[in-house]
């Protein structure tokens, strides 16, 4: 638990001792120091993230190998369907499997965060009904699992690159920025879905649909350069397009060109959803305990 400062009470000098700050609970009262409060709960964030990671592959036979098999099989199917059968072009000279893999990494990161975080409040309802903490911890902590899976898949990609003799150049150093972008792009919609899911369990059925649908409308199995030029700006309204393009630019060296107007638009959409997500979440988080 943490201490709360009520600035008003502080100004009036009501708080007599330095450690004795007054917390005021009232209907509709927004906490002024929400973010510092969140920071003081970082240990809980860490332990919840650790719990999700520790539990993820318990009681499975092949354990963390699942994080390898899923993207590997998807990559093979996409390479066969889009590369071999449909004969779509890759980005520059990059081998098709590497190009698919470089797009699938951010897509799996995005979609896992989206589906895990959207369900996280419901799966942690026992905590929310019994203990106070800033609720934002729950969906954000659940996205750490996705990052761990991402790390495993990333090693797979490196292996694939070595195997096919394709090596990235200096751009790979900027990859952490795009990983962060992928996480933020997923968290915005995830927070909206998570808070709606508490109220209306309909969203439990909608989320898998969004994920399935999103995989085909995003440039996962094909390069975004195959999209006709006049549609590209509209196509970039999908925030994942910017993320995937960024990943390919980093991982395939100069082979994949970023379409900058589209990338900028993707950034704006990501920022908008993140703002909307946090706003929706904070407006509803006080009622979560009443709704389970």
């Amino acid at each position, binding site marked *: *638990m943490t201490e709360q400062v009520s600035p008003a009470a502080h100004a009036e000098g*009501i708080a007599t001792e330095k450690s004795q700050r*007054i*917390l005021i*609970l009232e209907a509709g009262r927004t906490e002024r120091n929400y973010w510092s409060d969140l920071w003081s709960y970082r240990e809980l964030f860490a332990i919840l993230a650790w*719990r999700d990671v520790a539990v993820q592959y318990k009681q499975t036979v092949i354990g963390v190998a699942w994080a390898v098999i899923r993207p590997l099989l998807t990559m093979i199917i996409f390479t066969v369907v889009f590369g071999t059968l449909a004969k779509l072009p890759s980005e520059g000279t990059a081998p098709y499997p590497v190009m698919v893999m470089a797009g699938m990494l951010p897509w799996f990161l995005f979609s896992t965060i989206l589906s895990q975080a959207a369900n996280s409040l419901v799966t942690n309802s026992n*905590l929310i009904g019994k*203990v106070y903490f800033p609720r934002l911890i729950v969906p954000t902590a659940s996205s750490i699992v996705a990052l761990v899976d991402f790390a495993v898949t990333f090693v797979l990609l490196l292996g694939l690159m070595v195997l096919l003799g394709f090596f990235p150049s200096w751009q790979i150093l900027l990859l952490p920025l795009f990983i962060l972008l992928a996480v933020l792009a997923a968290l915005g919609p995830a927070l909206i879905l998570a808070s709606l899911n508490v109220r209306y369990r309909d969203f439990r059925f909608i989320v898998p649909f969004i994920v399935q649908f999103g995989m085909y409308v995003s440039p996962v199995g094909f390069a975004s350069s195959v999209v006709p030029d006049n549609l590209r700006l509209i196509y970039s309204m999908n925030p994942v397009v910017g993320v995937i393009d960024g990943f390919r630019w980093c991982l395939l060296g100069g082979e994949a060109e970023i379409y900058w107007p589209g990338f900028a638009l993707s950034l704006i959409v990501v920022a908008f959803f993140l703002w909307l997500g946090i706003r929706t979440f904070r407006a509803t988080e006080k009622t979560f305990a*009443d709704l389970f």
Partner: protein
Amino acid sequence: MTSDTVIRAEGLGKKYIIGHQTADRSTTFRDVITQNVKNFVRGAKDMAQGKAIVAGDELEEFWALKDVNFEIKRGDVVGIIGRNGAGKSTLLKVLSRITEPTEGRVEIKGRVASLLEVGTGFHPELSGRENVYLNGAILGMTRAEINRKFDEIVDFSGVEKFLDTPVKRYSSGMYVRLAFAVAAHLEPEILVVDEVLAVGDAEFQKKCLGKMQDVAGQGRTVLFVSHNIGAIKSLCKSGILMQNGSAAFIGQVQDTLDFYGRQLNASRHGGSDGSGLRVESITLDYNGTPALDIRVDGLSIPTGRYEIRAFLTSASGTAVGVGSVGGFGSKGLEISVKNQSLNLSLQLPNLARDIYLITLEWVDEATHNVVARLNLDEVDFLPPPLTGENHALDSSWGSGFVRLPISVSM
């Protein structure tokens, strides 16, 4: 807020919207369709307005808390009592910030830890050791704090042998012991506890109560909800009686309990009838079959044959048990004027732990009139741990009685 007030509630209220199913729901197929369409339209409308969905055909506002005012000073140990549904748990939820009040305000000074359940967040797949850290963090302990107290926690729980076993393999007793051990080592300035002492066997309960007494003795402020009058009496200095969502009585713990007892009796029996009866002593005897020994004095009823009936009611108002000497076709009890006092022994083999109200009645065998009636204080019945095939009649079991063996000597 004066300097030593740590919690102050002003006009606190909490409203819930609850739904009811109409009684004659499935009369005809057409009615069902109409009702479902109506519910769907309402659900869609609520969703469009961003309101929550409430299941049911009719909606009603329900104030779980209404106009609650109180002040708690630093170091106070406050027992919150009241019937089921009186608003105790809602009050604790508001104070521990889990839910927001609908109206009014609360001011809290200091770090609050709430213990509304033992083992919050325990994960069955994780080991005992891992769960100690998980549960500790959820309850608000820092990692350093848990590290420092880890040995003490394990010691208290007595499960050191199974520390690296997943808790899903634990017996339910081990599970609650470990969970309570973590909770018992919390060191907040204000501790909010909801009926968590009701775990484990009798011995562990004693240990928990002792630990709670330690916590209370360290000058911490404790709010404690319990149905266990014995625990309330031994732990708390002051009491708050909750009734229909508001604080009906606030005062010293004994005064609050007395007020509660009087009210329960008054509401159930309309006061005593003044037949001059009084209870000399009530003892709970736990040897063998648990039994209640009652010595009654001041019997001033004419010589004759009487049936003695005993009625047990749980504090929530449910009739639980009935016992009788005489009656049920057997011969009544011969009572002559000189037998002014009488020992009754009421055996209670099948009762769950709870607070019971006991009413004794003397019924004239010939006329079937009740000539004397006596309402005993609440008896806090704590049965010995159950073994083997014994099953307790739960106090939430609802309707129905157990016939209790009763014996009388003069």
